[in-house]
């Protein structure tokens, strides 16, 4: 009898432990490159903008809706995939005067802290570009999850401004192309 009641107690504890409420941990999403984009624009001669994008991006983010501070965001951009719709310019951008793709093949971001704000999340993390790591903070708008066929999807967007001179880019190459670049990220994450 005593053994039975111990067994029933143990079973009850297990059931509570695996109940849906307690099971709610962070949802992990893979970056969907087909429905996402990382683009940028920079001033040319201070009179117009040159636009470009990176075509090969990988990433992952986990969203803990119960405790957003436990959410994480990670992105890795392949520098070689830079695309400004001009082959010669793209090749020039890959060279050491600019991105130096053979020495620094990726631009990486790893979040260190996240907090919920109205409309999304404020994310702080380390951005490593051109061999230099700096802390940046930006607001990710979005986070609503929908079910599409058998996949759950969530979308975010953000805009941030970076200075090339902060990341050890060659200062003599900053002139015709402005120092500041605006980065626009629209991304979707998916999970089964």
């Amino acid at each position, binding site marked *: 009898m005593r053994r039975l009641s111990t067994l029933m107690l143990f079973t009850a504890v297990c059931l509570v432990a695996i109940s849906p409420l307690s099971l709610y941990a962070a949802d992990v999403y893979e970056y969907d490159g087909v429905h996402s984009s990382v683009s940028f624009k920079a001033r040319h001669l201070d009179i117009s903008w040159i636009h470009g994008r990176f075509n090969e991006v990988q990433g992952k983010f986990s969203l803990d809706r119960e405790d957003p501070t436990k959410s994480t965001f990670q992105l890795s951009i*392949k520098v*070689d995939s830079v695309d400004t719709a*001009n082959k*010669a*310019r793209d*090749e*020039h951008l890959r*060279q*050491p*005067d600019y991105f*130096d*793709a*053979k*020495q620094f*093949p*990726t631009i990486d971001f790893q979040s260190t802290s996240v907090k919920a704000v109205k409309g999304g999340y404020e994310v702080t993390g380390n951005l490593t570009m*051109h*061999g230099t790591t700096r802390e940046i903070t930006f607001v990710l708008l979005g986070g609503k999850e929908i079910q599409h066929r058998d996949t759950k999807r969530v979308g975010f967007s953000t805009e941030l401004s970076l200075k090339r001179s902060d990341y*050890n880019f*060659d*200062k*003599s*190459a900053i*002139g*015709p192309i402005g120092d500041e670049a605006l980065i626009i990220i629209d991304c979707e994450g998916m999970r089964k």
Partner: protein
Amino acid sequence: MPDGWLFLQASLASAAISAALVVAGARVARRVSFVGAEGSALVGLVCGLIVGYAWLGFVWVWPPLNALQRLLQLILPAALLIEAAACWPAVPRRLIVGLRFALAAVTGRVLWQGSVYLDPARGGWSQAWALGTLLGCGGLLIGSWWALGRLLRRPAGTSVVAALGMVLVGGGVATMMAGYLKGGTAALPLAAAVLGSGLALSLVARGRSLDGPLSCGVLGLFGLLFIGRFFGGLGTPAALVLGLAPLLCWVSELSWLRPALKSRAGLIAALRLLLVALVLGAVLFQAKQAFDRDFRPLLRAVPVPPPPVAAALLDRP
């Protein structure tokens, strides 16, 4: 955009400082020390390089982040230290040869440090391919260094340093036109310092070893072409031709040609420099064509109006 006037100023400053220090050092060396002339060439080289790169606004970062910084802050200083040791008669010659060999062997590997070429996981080459390339490049460097060193001790040895300086300038321009502006610019103070110190040394202290300027020039040329090829847009054929161009100086040593030259240093030097200049001209012509095709549309220069006579001709019915 490249500033030709700034490049000229930096090169002239570099050459002038190098030459002046060599001349001053040689005068002191006559009274003070046997090794002073070679030592002053090294001092001239170092000061010429520092002045030249400072004039161009090069920024020194530690630790070096990219291949060009590793070349300028690690490889060239190591070469200069070895040549400084070579100035002392007490240092065994075999040790100096061994150190030069070791430096030549590791140069490629050092320049590739942290790059994709050494990391297959980041889209780089396989280990076998990377090792094969490093061995091949190292072999070419060692072979060139040895061959040019031998030629240095024959009549018109100074022309070898002059040819090296010419190829450095040509290689720098070719690298710039291939899209790597800073890498090409780095060749100019190096060429100027090598030429300034080498030519000054041969004028004021005849018979003294030009190994210092030669080593700096050979390693600098290899390093810049290696960086231009693997990090910039310099093609493999252009890099190989430029790297091997100084070896054309050996043409003057052909058995059927030597009697005609009759050991006249001026004639030998002229032949060597002419051969190197012809090859340089061909490489730069091809580089200019590629630049006009690929990069000139990006610059989109404002059309220069034709001169009045041409405009009048054009306006004729």
